[in-house]
């Protein structure tokens, strides 16, 4: 059950990410990222992180991506044209990305003797307890970081207003 869910939604996430890379129009990239985020929400849910699955859908694919799509529509961004710079970037970018992938997979697979023995999954039906634990941890031990994020959001809002304001 868990393996089937992982294969379906992990494969969907990889396909949508590749679609993000290959599409030329920004709006297509943004909509593929929504698919990636939705499939990751399902994966969080299979890992017993129900609160994060809901937050992923509401915050990321709801709020952040709507902002992205809104800005793309506002600026009327068209297809990116192939230039000399984009050719140089793809020649230089592919080996770099491949090297990082090889490094990450090497580390993950060589540590597999320790990590791979642990099998995940199995808390799909204890939904409420998880949220209780998260909130009690967040409002006791981690109360200060939680309050600091509110200051961060306030500063971000003010910064966005100042930056986007029309100069006169």
């Amino acid at each position: 059950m868990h393996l089937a869910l992982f294969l379906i939604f992990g494969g969907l996430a990889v396909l949508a990410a590749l679609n993000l890379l290959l599409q030329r129009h920004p709006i297509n990239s943004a909509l593929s990222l929504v698919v990636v985020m939705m499939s990751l929400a399902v994966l969080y849910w299979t890992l017993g992180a129900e609160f994060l699955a809901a937050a992923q859908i509401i915050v990321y694919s709801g709020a952040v991506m709507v902002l992205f799509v809104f800005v793309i529509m506002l600026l009327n961004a068209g297809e990116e044209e192939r230039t000399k710079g984009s050719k140089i970037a793809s020649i230089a970018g592919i080996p770099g990305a491949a090297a990082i992938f090889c490094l990450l997979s090497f580390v993950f697979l060589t540590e597999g003797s320790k990590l791979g023995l642990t099998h995940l999954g199995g808390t799909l039906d204890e939904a409420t307890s998880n949220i209780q634990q998260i909130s009690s941890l967040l409002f006791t031990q981690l109360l200060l970081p939680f309050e600091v994020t509110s200051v961060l959001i306030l500063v971000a809002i003010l910064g966005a207003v100042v930056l986007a304001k029309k100069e006169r």
Partner: protein
Amino acid sequence: MVPVNYYLVLAAILFTVGIAAYLMKRNVITIFISIELMLNAVNLTFVAFAHMWNKLNGQIFVFFVMVVAAAEAAVGLAIIIALYRSRQTLNVDQVNLLKG
């Protein structure tokens, strides 16, 4: 039951696609979108490790990453709008004010 390796390799694949898009795209908005993809890939490893060790700290870290990403998206898109106003383009090759 899925081995934890599978989740980590999936996160590595997503992170790599994010880096490739970051390096290869020439549009500012698409570059910004690929940063969000990389943040999501890292979040997946946090959740997988949190489940593996039966600790909630990883999940709470993902919560903070989401908050910071939302704030970053608001400021970054405002910067993109200001950039478009002054340069009339979204192509990073044509944004070279700092070039000597």
